[in-house]
């Protein structure tokens, strides 16, 4: 059997991390192809439901990333997001979801190299954890995770 390739969904903000990931590309830095970036206006826009939906659709890991504190394009979106993550992460842990599958990060538009490192290390960590079978078992009978790429 082929080696397990983790499927990782990255929810990133338009202004910092998405631009940072662009910089990774324009700097010709190679990194793991396991990540699918979803661009949102701001980390403040990242509803916790989106993270749950990513897992329901077959993600093995999720990255949530945006501007560093103090750098938000909308002044405070990332501060609000941070509060939400603090509680949401705690709640996931409390109901027994492995929180190692969700990585929160700040990656600025200038941190192309940090983005590559982040994706590479998360990919390796998720590879070690294996497929998120626990969550996949929750899917209703006959419903398969979405196959992307």
């Amino acid at each position, binding site marked *: 059997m082929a080696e397990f390739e983790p499927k990782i969904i990255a929810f990133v903000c338009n202004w910092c991390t998405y631009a940072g990931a662009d910089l990774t590309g324009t700097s010709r830095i190679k990194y793991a192809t396991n990540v699918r970036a979803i661009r949102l206006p701001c980390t403040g826009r990242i509803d916790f*439901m989106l993270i749950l939906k990513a897992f329901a659709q077959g993600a093995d890991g999720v990255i949530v990333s945006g501007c560093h*504190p103090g750098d938000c394009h909308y002044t405070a979106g990332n501060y609000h997001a*941070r509060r939400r993550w603090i509680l949401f992460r705690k*709640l996931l842990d409390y109901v*027994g979801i492995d929180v190692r599958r969700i990585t*929160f990060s700040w990656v600025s538009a200038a941190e192309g190299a940090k983005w590559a490192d982040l994706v590479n290390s998360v990919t390796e960590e998720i590879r070690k954890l294996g497929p998120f079978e626990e969550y996949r078992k*929750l899917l*209703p009978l006959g419903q398969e995770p979405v196959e992307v790429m």
Partner: protein
Amino acid sequence: MEELRNKARELLETGTVQVVIGYARGSTAEKARAVFVCSAQQTQGLIFNEYCTQNLAVYLLKPEVKALGKPAVVARLPALRTVLQLAAEGQIADGQVVVLAVADDGKVTELADLPAVEKYLSGVSLALSAQQEELVARIEKMSREQRWAFWQEQFARCLKCYACRAACPMCYCARCVVDVNQPQWVPVAPHALGNLEWHLVRAMHLAGRCVNCGYCAEACPVGIPLNLLTLMLSREVAAEFGLTAGASTKKEYALSVYKPDDKEGFIR
């Protein structure tokens, strides 16, 4: 009990309120139900005992109840906090409700306005009780796999009846996220995925707003200890952000305010 009836009668006779939301005997002596007393004669039906656990503040926002006129509501600690939290969220204005606070020793106090409710609660500890802390700690002591198994077993019984939502005075959205079907955020059928998602959504939407009345768990027909989710989040909101729901009419919802130096240890 007589004291409560007298206060209710007085409020109705003087026309201070048009309806008293209280408890009456249920189908058996061990059950209580909500009653909407609109005349002085009916106040004889009011009771108060250990079975009166429902958070009656849930009725304050119902259009059918609002149509009856200005209400007085019989309230123990959680319902008192509910009134303040609803006011903080702009759902109740001062002067719209009279509260008949019943203390643990049975003493009834008439609270005519919201500042009076705030004052009444000012000396009361709103932190989790030792017993509540213990319930949460029991879950946290488990390994992650045990917690997952525990909650999966609990959620497997969920029928998606939404009694928890109906019982909750803070779940007043005219259009709840689970009723949204474009996109369908939470699957309708009571299967494992939808059940988990529903209970996580419910807990998150109540984080920083829940007043720990625990009536969600009591209303649950299959006995899911839903209050364990919200209790843990209440404790976290207090510990992380120093906020307590239902302590005052001041609007300070934990997830709509922030501090630039909020502490966390997991963001890379």
